[in-house]
């Protein structure tokens, strides 16, 4: 199980919209997007059009799982085995 939490404000919303993964579930409430999956969740920079300052803060809402990759092109959260 993995999840990423994205504050529901204009500059961060594209992070939630660009998230991909198997059996992805998206909820929007209490001021946050919650994107969850039984497997890995990926966000590709190319799908977001975000400026650097927002991209490199894209997980500010938090994530559940293990952060496998976070660089200028891709964020990937994977199940951490707990």
């Amino acid at each position: 199980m993995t999840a990423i939490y994205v504050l529901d404000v204009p500059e961060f919303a594209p992070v939630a919209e660009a998230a991909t993964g198997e059996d992805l579930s998206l909820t929007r409430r209490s001021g946050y997007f919650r994107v969850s999956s039984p497997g890995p969740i990926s966000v590709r920079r190319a799908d977001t059009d975000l400026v650097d300052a927002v991209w490199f803060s894209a997980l500010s809402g938090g994530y559940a799982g293990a952060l496998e990759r976070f660089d200028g092109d891709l964020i990937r959260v994977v199940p951490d085995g707990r």
Partner: protein
Amino acid sequence: MPGSLRTRGVDHAAYVTARPAETIRFYRDVMGLRTPHVITAKGWGGKPHPDFVHFFFDIGNGDRLAFFYYFGVPEDPGAARPTYHLALHVETQEELLAWRARFERLGVRVIAQIVHETIESIYVRDPNGMVLEITRPLRELSERDEFDAELSLAALLDTLEEDDPTLETFWQRKAELVEKELANDPEED
């Protein structure tokens, strides 16, 4: 949470300069700031630097930027550049770009222009090496931002209890706190 006891903005932010002439020329002449107040004092500045001038620049809204110059204290050539910075507010992108043009016209290098989450900024260095940012809002901050900030600080304090705090453990803790909020409010928007 703050109650009725509040501070009301910046009265003055004060720094020390070993380059008073350059500092006056930069803030008064390049930036065109008014100089509402200067203090001069003899023997009141402590042992290594008793005599000083303390001069103030009006940065708008009644707020002031101030410098101490201590007579007889030479510039330390080995001193590190300041790692702090000061950001001054403007309202619009037109004003931001006008400041950029003014700096460039008067020979001050604009280090960067960056769009952040909720602000857009330009950066220059003042004669003391301090980064001076001029910034305009991209949107108004809301209660949602403030609530999220409170969760972030709570997550940070929790993370700092750990032996080896990292951004990853902070973000994982933040997720737990957000999840708790969602569990308390199960209705869809």
